[in-house]
């Protein structure tokens, strides 16, 4: 019985979101504000259960219970202090201190990114392009022609992204071919995704008709 209630609430809220397709209206505003509040609360609870308790409260409890020898484990205390420094934003005079934890976060993020992004986005794309014509990496003339086209297309694509050269002459020609190739790729990627988006809607309509309305009608008439 309880499932019918939950599914009915879910169905009503789903329809409220669908009404946004017609235009902004009170039903949508209600569902929107409700889901923002509920999702913010959900993430706070998940953060507490998966991060706060295991990473902060448990070590602290162990220290209070005298179980762990070191009085204050620096690996927990230092980040806790960094986190507390964030709260200086509430005091206008000392708000600049909150830049310290932010500086740390940006330092970790961008420092790790410098080599990683070069490896995954650049080197790991250059390597397969180099081996397009390595003996044994293609079979048949069809694959050979395709690989030649791929090589040409990658070089033209790169030409399109040249910023510091006027797009004239050879560079101009290659970059024009480059944008064409990019557009063919974008069109193909768009067309490819349509099927998964349609199945999302099919899933929701299927839920509304067969998992909510059907059983409810049977329950009432049953």
């Amino acid at each position, binding site marked *: 019985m309880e499932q019918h209630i939950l599914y009915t609430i*879910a169905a009503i809220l*789903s329809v409220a*979101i669908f009404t*946004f397709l017609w235009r902004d209206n009170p039903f949508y505003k*209600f569902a929107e*504000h409700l*889901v*923002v*509040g*509920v999702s*913010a609360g959900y*993430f*706070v609870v998940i*953060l507490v259960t998966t*991060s706060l308790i295991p*990473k902060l409260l448990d070590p602290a409890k162990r220290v209070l219970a005298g179980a762990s020898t070191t009085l204050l484990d620096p*690996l927990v205390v230092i*980040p*806790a202090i960094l986190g507390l420094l*964030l*709260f200086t934003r509430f005091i206008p005079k000392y708000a600049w201190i909150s*830049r310290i934890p*932010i*500086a*740390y976060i*940006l*330092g*970790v*993020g*961008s*420092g*790790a*990114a410098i*080599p*990683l992004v070069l490896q995954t986005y650049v080197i790991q794309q*250059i390597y*397969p392009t180099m081996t397009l014509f390595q003996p044994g990496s293609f079979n048949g003339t069809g694959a050979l022609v*395709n690989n030649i086209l*791929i090589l040409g*297309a*990658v070089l033209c*694509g*790169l030409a399109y992204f040249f910023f510091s050269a006027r797009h004239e002459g050879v560079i101009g020609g290659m970059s024009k071919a*480059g944008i*064409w190739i*990019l*557009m*063919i*790729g*974008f*069109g*193909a*990627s*768009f*067309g*490819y995704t349509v*099927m998964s*988006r349609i199945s999302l809607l099919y*899933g*929701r309509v299927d839920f509304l008709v067969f998992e909510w309305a059907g059983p409810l009608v049977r329950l009432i008439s049953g």
Partner: protein
Amino acid sequence: MQRELPRLITLVTGMFMAIQYFIPHKHSEQFYQTSLDWLIIVGIFSIVLGIASLVNLHVNKIQRRDAGTKYSYILLAGLLYMILSAILTGTDQQSFFMKGYIAVLNPITSTMFALLAFYIASAAFRAFRARSLIATILLVSAVVVMLGRVPAGEDLIPGIAKVSDWLLNVPNMAAKRAISIGLGLGGSATALKVVLGIEAPHLR
């Protein structure tokens, strides 16, 4: 002092993290693991800033009697409900916390996701117009792949599935590679500028 200390912190942590990437040794791995743990712990405190901003915004709206204040009550009620239900009834399958997830969060987010089916159609209808050569290329490529993906398309134009596969395996793959190489260089340069303090969002 207000600008030099943060700049120094970003520079030092940035250098350490960049170098750590090349060192597989146990200590380097522990350093990486510790940095991730620290990010999570700082993240715990940062959520307080987030929730404070959210609550403050809507409490002000209520006090100022702005239009739509009743919706702010609903938002704060939703927030309170989830936190209280987790404290009182825990977070397992039968708890009111999970009922809130099943009855509100899950259906609304998956319906928002499902709106894409409508928007992909309206975007295609409005934007895929043969305005220029590039726009025509985009629209033809999209139509061919769409027809190639469904049996009805194959019945309409035999062999279209092969063309659609070719479009996905040759031009689309080459385009992705060219964009990736550009993004890699641009991304790495941006990260370097932040570490060196040339472009410093945190020091403004």
